């Protein structure tokens, strides 16, 4: 398979990074051809810059075993929450997940309309869509809250890109100490922040509303 072919295979199969590796191989191999100068690359908009830096468009699978692209399907044009967990985590995850379930109840039908909640598994090889579905049901998750798994490399890329990491390598590899914060943000408005997953649910609702309310369209039919 040619490098270009490998890259398109990677794209098609949603395997992050292979395209990058192929490209890097080109860099090292000096495949670039000399020639005349051309117009400088267009400067990306701030929103586009954020997308490139933080939102790899990797393919994940939902608890309903549906493939979704991280940026295109989960983040783009939305207000969202994002956190990481794994189903068999016995330390912090049950606390955060039950807290987020309360957040969802408090927000009512705005979740799935004005806000989309995303919880991504840190043990993707173990957390199959079926296991995620059972986990979601156990916690009373309702529509608008998506539980996600995927290729381990893709999940790792997401974890790093979204900053769910620890600067100490020793702590970072200890899954029991994984980051328990909940990112909240509004993609088109370029508003991003985070709060502790164990913060009071009412306070998380209030925090999320700072980025959510502007996204709600006043003219939107609400019955």
């Amino acid at each position, binding site marked *: 398979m040619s490098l270009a072919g490998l890259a398109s295979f990677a794209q098609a199969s949603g395997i992050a990074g292979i395209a990058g*590796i192929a490209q*890097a191989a*080109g*860099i090292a191999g000096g495949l670039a051809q000399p020639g005349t100068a*051309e117009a400088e690359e267009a400067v990306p908009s701030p929103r586009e810059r954020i997308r490139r830096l933080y939102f790899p468009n990797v393919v994940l699978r939902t608890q309903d075993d549906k493939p979704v692209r991280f940026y295109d399907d989960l983040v783009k044009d939305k207000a969202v929450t994002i956190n990481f967990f794994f189903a068999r985590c016995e330390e912090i995850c049950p606390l955060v997940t039950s807290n987020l379930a309360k957040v969802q109840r408090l927000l009512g039908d705005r979740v799935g309309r004005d806000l989309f909640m995303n919880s991504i598994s840190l043990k993707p090889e173990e957390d199959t869509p079926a296991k995620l579905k059972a986990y979601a049901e156990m916690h009373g998750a309702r529509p608008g809250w998506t539980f996600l798994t995927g290729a381990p*490399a893709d999940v790792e890329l997401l974890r790093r890109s979204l900053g769910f990491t620890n600067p100490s390598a020793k702590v*970072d590899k200890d899954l029991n100490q994984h980051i328990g914060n909940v990112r909240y943000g509004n993609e088109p408005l*370029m508003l991003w922040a985070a709060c502790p997953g164990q913060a009071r649910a009412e306070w998380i609702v209030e925090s999320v509303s700072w980025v959510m309310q502007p996204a709600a369209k006043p003219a939107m039919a609400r019955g």
Partner: protein
Amino acid sequence: MYYNALGERVSRRRYREMLAAAKNRRELIAAGLHNRRDLFKMGLLTGTGMLVAKNGLSSRAWAQPFQQGPQNICAGAGLPASPPTRSFIVPLPIMPVAQTVSSLTPAPTIAPNTGAGEVRAAPHQAPALGFPFPPPKLYRFTQQAIQVSQSPDLPLQTVWGYNDGHHATSPGPTYAAHYGVPQLTRNINALPPLSQNGGFGMPSVTTHLHNAHNPSESDGNPCDFYEIGHFCDQYYPNVLAGFNSDHQPNGDINEALSTLWYHDHRVDFTSQNTYKGLVGYYLLFNQFDTGNEETGFRLPSFPQFDVPLVFADKVYDPISKQLAFDLFSLDGIMGDKFLVNGQIQPFFQVEPRRYRFRLLDTGPSRFYEFFLTDLNNLGAANPFWVIGNDGNLLPAPVQVQSVRIGVAERVDVIIDFSQFAGKTIYLENRLNQLNGMGPVNAGQCTDVNGNPVPTMLAAGQGNLLMQFRVGSGHVQDDSGNPATQTFYQLPSTDAEPRITRTFKFDRLNGQWSINGQFMDCHTFRFQVQQNSVENWVLTNATGDWTHPIHIHLEEHQILSRNRQPPPLAIERSRKDVTQLHPQERVLLFFRFRDWLGKYPIHCHNVVHEDHAMMGLWHVQAEGDDVLVP
């Protein structure tokens, strides 16, 4: 034409970046990182196939690959490296002195004028205590987007600043306030609408006057934020602590403040909004610290020889060359460009005489240790005088070869340039900090070759922050000699505390906490009794992290660090931010006087602060007995 590995046409710039990336990659391989797969696993390859620039290596990237090895490699933090900029070709900008207005429309009201769009937590406390209303000095500060040049090698930057009606700047205009002259600032939010923040920043504000002995409703509490089109009238009484308690009617002169600053404090978004420019100085003069070197303590005259300096480290996007903020950092953000008064590495022409500099670290997360460096004589010690810690004059000047401050701390220093007449010298930060954890601790980690990474860099190897070009010849200098000066006495700390409270600063699965709890605008942790003495114990349970801890309303004195008197002479002082080092237990002394209302305690690494390492408390007539709030 230029092509990448996929046979796609790319720009010349992109091609140059690819070549640079290939060079970086060869160096990394030379450092023992053998194949592409390793590089990818380490996150050194970005999604677009670029290698992460080496000095911008993200902690997120570094964290994974070294888990197998015995070495603990220092983790860098941050975004891809900024584009190159030249140093010391632009003169130091000086923030203009804030100008008053003759009146405000609508006129200020004691109760919040909600009908006119004012958002304030409570009626002004000051008028009922005999302060004039409206006060004799009025300011109208509009917070707005402005375009500034931060380096001739970068395009104009859109930042957020303050407009006093005469100048719109970032850092904002410098208040020159005087004790005994109360004033009121109308802080107006005229920031650009949502979706026009350029990539970061929340156009919702609350302006804190840092270190002021101010009533709660004018303090700029993080929870008292307001949206575009609204304003808040903030009453600054400029009064000494004790005026309404143990030193009536004028307060305790030994509580005099000198160097304050104002900054946005919007809960969860302070790091973005201050990084975007919402900071400024507030100097407070009195009959001793007069601003005139011929009177009082005879400190160098303001503004010619008394120069406020705002330090900030920032990152610029390598492609757009616009100011960039790491939206997804939980640890802290490290800039690779050093700004002084809004300009990257400026120079300052000085005369061979004494100057007073006020040094302020606005972060977001960096600690500095300032040295004077002569690049032609790196072995020279080049001492200078510290006269104030956190802007509070010390009992007497302390001569040092360096001074360290964390985010939000200030030091006032006297530099005598007569010893450098005709030379060029530098203000250099030699403290080594790689990520939001704080300065590198001794023995903490190694570089990729296994060499220990030092806490302090060698002379000339640190960050040259600004350049002083020292004139020659004789010039007038009527300022006092620091070697013989004395200032205020430290207020006594002999009083028995009504209560000793303990605050454990912790990190629970990446969630910053105080006593296991998180910031919440609706939860008050404890109640301080008005006009009482308390001792607070701050303990650091976060391992290798250092935190600059700030407490509003009242200054404190450090009684001990790990049960010993504070080792540094400059810490025998009044403070409003105390560095809490790894494994440390710090005991603080407070008198909470005069005002009522709500205030926070928080880490001033603004990234930690925004991620809930903060708690609210309040002062009421009756105190509670919560020992571990």
